[in-house]
């Protein structure tokens, strides 16, 4: 294994860069800011290469499907054709070009919106299965959901004006309290994770294992 492929180097670089960004967030040191700005720019460049790498992977996988003519290969072919056409148009016209803009507004945006709206039905299906009077917890979930649903639905206020204050109370106090509690626990867990990374104790995300190789 080449020296630059050693895991210790990745661990050191990750920890060192984390310390630099951490200090830059808290300290007024112009030289540190220059370093973080430079590193951020590197990040942007590396991300651009990574997208390229991602598309190479995509073309290899879907290309094989087309080549072997596996079931549904024509979808893969359509994906590759669309990717190539939009990429060429994007390079030629830029992201604000008339044709790329037309495709985004009339195809991509609409498909995204469609999927987003479908998510509602998945949520309704999950709610139907879960909201049952079978235990104290699920009963509370059912009652809370019922109150918040009717607080947000225009018809709720017509049925009973009490849904609005009860629904608002549930959202502003129990829900907000839990969300902040989870937020605080995540913040402390992130600090502990950061320290483990700085000290080189956690590297499972570098090599997929915590055992030194």
């Amino acid at each position, binding site marked *: 294994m080449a020296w630059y492929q050693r895991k210790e180097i990745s661990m050191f670089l990750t920890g060192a860069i984390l310390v630099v960004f951490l200090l830059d967030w808290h300290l007024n040191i112009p030289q540190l800011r220059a370093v973080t700005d430079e590193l951020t720019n590197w990040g942007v460049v590396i991300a651009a290469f990574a997208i390229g790498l991602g598309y190479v992977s995509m073309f290899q996988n879907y290309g094989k499907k087309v080549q072997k003519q596996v079931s549904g290969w024509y979808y893969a072919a359509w994906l590759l054709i669309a990717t190539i056409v939009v990429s060429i148009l994007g390079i030629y016209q830029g992201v604000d070009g008339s044709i790329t803009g037309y495709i985004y507004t009339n195809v991509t945006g609409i498909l995204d919106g469609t999927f987003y709206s479908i998510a509602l039905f998945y949520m309704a299906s999950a709610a139907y299965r879960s909201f049952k009077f079978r235990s104290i917890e699920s009963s509370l979930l059912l009652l809370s959901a019922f109150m918040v649903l009717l607080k947000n639905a225009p018809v709720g206020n017509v049925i009973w004006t009490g849904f609005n204050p009860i629904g608002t109370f549930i959202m502003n106090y129990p829900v907000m309290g839990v969300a902040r509690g989870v937020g605080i626990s995540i913040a402390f*867990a992130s600090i*502990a994770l950061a320290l483990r990374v700085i000290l080189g104790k956690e590297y499972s995300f570098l090599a997929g*294992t915590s055992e030194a190789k």
Partner: protein
Amino acid sequence: MSLLVTGKTVPFIVLIGLFIAIYYSMMQAQKAKELPYIRKVAGLDAIEESVERSSEMNRPVIAGYGLGGFDTGTLSALSITGYVARVAARTRTEIFVPAGGDTGTSIVYPQAAEIVRNAYDDEGRLEDYKAANVIFLSESQFAWATAQIGMIHEKNVGAAVFTGLYGPEVAALSEEAKDVGAVVIVSGDVRSLAVTACIADYILIGEELYAAGAYLSKDPVQIGSIRGQDWGKIFAVALIIIGVVALQFGFNILTAMFNI
């Protein structure tokens, strides 16, 4: 111009204090003869079982790490992806890792591919590793999600582990995975917690995701850090109580100190 950024003096001191407390806890754990106590996390314990179940059923598993960039949530999700890959390699179960979902996450994709490859290498099953299974689907969020739904049905997955940052698509992914009879394990983001709690068989709430690397490693030093972070939480709760009481008496010293 002062050395410390205005309004960040006290938070910086508290951060250093927390680092010292967590480090101390890690050192204590290293000296101890047995593993520090850590409560069971059902979602993490279920991973091995669900992958083994998939292996027995001769079905593959899908392990997504979300659409985040290099943030702490995604790093923790990558730890879990690595663990799923290790169990999959050990049990000779095929694993699919869908990448993409956002421009920022593309930078994580090569890392994820390397993690899965190393997991197979660690288990001595490098010959079973399929590079094509760590696949970049799309940088568009919903195209990425739709492709995963197709993958779930086409491959008939036996377990679906979705950790990291997800948007509303997590409801669709989990429901589709349930539809094919897969065991669904999801890390619940605060925004999607209610939905994931309804759909998933197991959820990782809040810090459970971030502690995954330490929990799964069974390394006393890493587990010690979790005890250290608990001290931090006790400190935060104490500060909140003191702050609330102080405000009732008209003292806003804590809000001023923390620049709230």
